[in-house]
């Protein structure tokens, strides 16, 4: 207000404006957002725009051989290796579903109370914190013929003769790789679900138990509604993640040998080994378009199926507040 009266009396003065509240705000907004925005543009949007441009050229990292229009895009669909690699992501999607189901099951058990729960939670969560290269070595070792997995399977009665080569056999090596990704993430998913489930007022369970509800009914009518938002979010993220699956074949198969090269691996290879930057860029753009389409479809689906999820969330928050108030009263 001070600023506007000052302006109406005298002609605009920069010095005064700097001292006014509006001016002060403008200064702080600019100084505080210039670095984050610069980083965002330089390392996210500029590469994005460049990549879009590259995708219309035949070029490597240093030399441009000429504008080729849509040829790179046509190649992506024509080349067997590029597009077939995309089908591999179905394995990872299957793995993601298994992983979410497992995480949900374990989180439910946690919420019914387990002695030593924190220890178990820690064990299952820890794989999430291991670096990718270490995971690569750990699983190369784990799956080697006659090593860890084979030994454990022999303990429970399998014969080594009947066990497959986990990483060499092209019929199962993709399952082995997906297994490592499930191994890494199920504990993290579980922690997320436990967090969401714990936000439900525990007196609800007690009331349900008194009314004779069994565990399954408690799960279905109390837990599931409270976590469906986060489960859906995770489903979306894991499907997007499956399309860009990259880590297991990259580190365990040293870059996707034996028919394990996912779309990302192919792209990395075409960009860095064959140096066909134009084609690799077109591949990336195609992948981004697929991811966008998948995200939008899922969001629409999400909105349609869980129209009232939001209302229930606010309900849960209100219940939690009430509980907190009660707790304070008792103290």
């Amino acid at each position, binding site marked *: 207000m001070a600023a506007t009266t000052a302006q109406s009396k005298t002609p605009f003065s920069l010095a005064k404006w700097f001292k006014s*509240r509006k001016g002060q*705000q403008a*200064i702080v*907004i600019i100084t*505080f*957002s210039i670095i*984050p*925005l610069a*980083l*965002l543009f330089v*390392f*996210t*949007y*500029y*590469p*994005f725009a*460049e990549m879009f441009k*590259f995708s219309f050229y035949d070029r490597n*990292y240093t030399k441009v051989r000429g504008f080729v229009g849509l040829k790179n895009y046509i190649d992506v669909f024509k080349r067997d290796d590029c597009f077939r690699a995309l089908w591999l992501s179905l394995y990872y999607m299957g793995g993601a579903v298994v992983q979410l189901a*497992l995480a949900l099951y*374990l989180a439910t058990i946690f919420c019914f109370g*387990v002695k030593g*729960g*924190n220890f*178990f939670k820690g064990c299952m969560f*820890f*794989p999430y*914190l291991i*670096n*990718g*290269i*270490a995971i690569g*070595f*750990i699983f190369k*070792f*784990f799956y080697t013929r006659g*090593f860890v997995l084979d*030994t454990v399977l022999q303990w429970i009665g399998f014969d080594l003769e009947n066990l497959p080569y986990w990483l060499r056999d092209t019929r199962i090596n993709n399952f082995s790789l997906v297994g490592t990704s499930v*191994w890494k993430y*199920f*504990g993290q998913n579980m*922690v*997320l679900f436990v*967090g*969401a489930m714990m936000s439900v007022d525990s007196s609800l369970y007690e009331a349900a138990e008194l009314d004779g509800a069994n*565990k399954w009914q408690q799960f279905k009518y109390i837990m599931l509604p409270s976590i469906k938002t*986060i489960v859906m979010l995770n489903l979306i993220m894991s499907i997007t993640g499956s399309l*860009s699956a*990259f880590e297991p074949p990259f580190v365990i198969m*040293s870059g996707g040998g034996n028919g394990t090269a996912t779309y*990302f691996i192919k*792209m*990395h290879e075409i*960009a860095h080994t064959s140096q066909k*930057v134009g084609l*690799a*860029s077109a591949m*990336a753009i195609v992948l*981004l378009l697929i*991811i966008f389409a998948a995200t939008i479809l899922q969001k629409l689906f999400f909105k349609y199926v869980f129209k009232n999820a939001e209302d229930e969330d606010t309900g849960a928050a209100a219940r939690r507040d009430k509980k907190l108030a009660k707790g304070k009263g008792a103290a």
Partner: protein
Amino acid sequence: MTAGETIKKYLWIFIKYFSMVFFSFVALLPVVSCIITAFKTETEYQNTNVMTPPESWLNFDNFIDAFRRADMGRAFVNSAVVVVFVVIGSVLVGSMIAYVLNRFKFPGNGLIRSLFLFATLLPGIAMQISTYQLMYSIGFINHLYGYIILMMGTDVISIYIFIQFFENISVSLDESAYMDGASYFTIFFRILFPLLKPAIVTCMILKGVGVYNEYYSAQLYLVDKELKTVAISLYTFTGPLGSQYNLICAGVIISLVPALIIFIAFQKQIYSGLTAGAVKG
């Protein structure tokens, strides 16, 4: 209680603990087998099953050897430098932009939020092709500072965590400080920043562990032997040493130790930070 109910109750308890123990075992088995092997001598490794415990749990030769061969001392210094600078940078950058977005209404506020949101949809690795080109042309390849700046620039989760946290700090606090003559910079650095402490700890841990484990960009941009971080120093063990698993396992275990320590010390913050990030993102 009838006999049927009693059986049901015990069956449930059995299923519950069986699941817990079984999946903890599954999660730990690959790591434990690695620890066992890391303590074995060369001949022991050749002649015993991988799951047979080592003769001596005090045989640290492999660890010393692995540490030397992969030059892990150097790698730990590099990783420490990278983690410290990236964490400081991204906490400052993240909290500053969160402050601006949460406290001020200005044209473009919504746009900036959507720009950050949209950026999360672009998978970073997909854009490495042109990022590489960019890093190459501004001479950021083979310099720790180049890698540090790159790592700082791509953090949206911490911005969310900070915005969420600011929402719970009353604006009247800013107002009264302003009335007392404090500038917005003073308000941010002297009053609000100290209040953000829990959020800062969470972001530092999540970002720190993430950067410590990052290897894809590291192997692209830190090619020089002198500049290797811990994660990529493990690459030393591919090639001629590729089947000496007692050595490799020792290297792997060494690389896990910092993450393990951080995890044990800050378990609660890690869990709550993950939940906060996921719910908003």
